[in-house]
């Protein structure tokens, strides 16, 4: 058994669906115990199956919500309209700048804390302290510590990424753009795709549609996790240009 054979002809799917013989199953297990790439594929299939089974009811609710294009933001806006009418205020029709602000809106990137016993260096220590603020939603408070971490280690994509995110969530758009650009310049990393995507968002925040479009096109070329979201956003940017 090797990777080519394991990943061919939907063998991994057959394994997850219990369609293999005992011999084939043992052979495959022996392989992925020693092969990170195939282990990752098996995990993805198993966890996706579990996630789909758990979410089948919740997913139906998500489908309904997408069909109506509503999310919590729209529900909040709808509630605001009702309150405004009731309070004598008037809701103005959405202008182009309002549409731009809407698509430039940013969700805080997820941070999963690293469980180190002790920080291995000063940059990591500053990073970890700063991210405690980030995890609480205090993005402005996270900035000084992340800036210090960046000074101590300018080659860390992770530090640059979260510094950019903290700037962006604190409305320091130019600084965010600089940090995300540094993260991108550091090359291939787990943060490259999201850095490009948020760089596009940052450009949108300052109204630079051309630069946002360029970054979204680069994001699409990476064919990663954000591909669909980047494609949807690109269509909206083109509609505004």
């Amino acid at each position: 058994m090797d990777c080519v054979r394991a990943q061919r002809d939907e063998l991994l799917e057959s394994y997850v669906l219990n369609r293999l013989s005992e011999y084939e199953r043992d052979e495959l297990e022996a392989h992925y115990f020693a092969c990170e790439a195939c282990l990752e594929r098996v995990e993805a299939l198993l966890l996706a199956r579990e996630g789909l089974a758990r979410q089948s009811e919740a997913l139906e609710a998500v489908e309904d919500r997408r069909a109506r294009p509503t999310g919590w933001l729209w529900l909040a806006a709808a509630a605001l309209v009702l309150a405004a009418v009731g309070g004598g205020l008037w809701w103005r029709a959405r202008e182009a700048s309002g549409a731009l602000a809407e698509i430039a809106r940013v969700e805080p990137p997820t941070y999963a804390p690293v469980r180190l016993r002790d920080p291995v260096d000063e940059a990591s220590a500053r990073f970890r302290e700063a991210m405690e603020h980030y995890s609480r939603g205090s993005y402005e408070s996270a900035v000084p510590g992340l800036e210090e971490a960046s000074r101590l280690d300018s080659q860390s994509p992770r530090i640059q990424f979260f510094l950019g995110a903290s700037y962006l969530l604190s409305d320091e758009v130019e600084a965010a753009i600089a940090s995300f650009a540094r993260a991108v310049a550091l090359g291939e990393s787990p943060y490259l795709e999201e850095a490009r995507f948020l760089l596009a968002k940052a450009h949108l925040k300052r109204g630079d549609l051309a630069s946002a479009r360029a970054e979204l096109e680069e994001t699409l070329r990476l064919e990663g996790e954000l591909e669909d979201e980047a494609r949807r956003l690109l269509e909206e940017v083109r509609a505004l240009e």
Partner: protein
Amino acid sequence: MQDNGVIGGPERPDEASHPTVDAAPSLERRILSGDRSAEEALVVRFGRPVFALILARIGDVEAARDLTQEALLCVIRQLRQGCLEKPDRLEAYVRGTGRNLANNHLRTQARRRSAQPPDVSRVLPGPDVELEIRERLEQVGRALQELPSSDRQILLGTLLDGQRPGEIASRLGMKPEAIRQRKSRALRKIRAAVRRVSRNAAASHTVAEGDL
């Protein structure tokens, strides 16, 4: 020595042709000599593949999580006592233990449901296996919600209904090749979600360099 048909197992095909990633012999000897960091390293090395093996066989995440911890603890206890029958066969030994626990679970499922699962969470050395499993499930859950509806339908048909691409293609009015491509793309996104958790976990298990 525990004797409930759990330990190790007969050699399986091609076991000799799969080199282990770690320096497995030294890991066994280190555990035998009382090195607790080696026990943690064993959990790091085998936690994920053992969980995958057990989950693939029994299809129950909660039970697989408990059995994974039980398997690892069982192996560690045996290694502490020097009970590994075949030196330098640690990987096969771990796989066999996981396999036997899974098969025992399937055979005695009713009895297991009523029995108290062993409380291993406080004694298993190294990383929190339960927490890492939960994090992976959360990340995958998010990734699934972000998928286009059609891609999710394809995964549902494949993984829950056991349908082949041709069957799904007929149902969705698409070509089988398109089904394969979209499935591949969707699974790539799921893998990316799993990878991020794995990389964070790996950073916490080893001396961090580069990214941190």
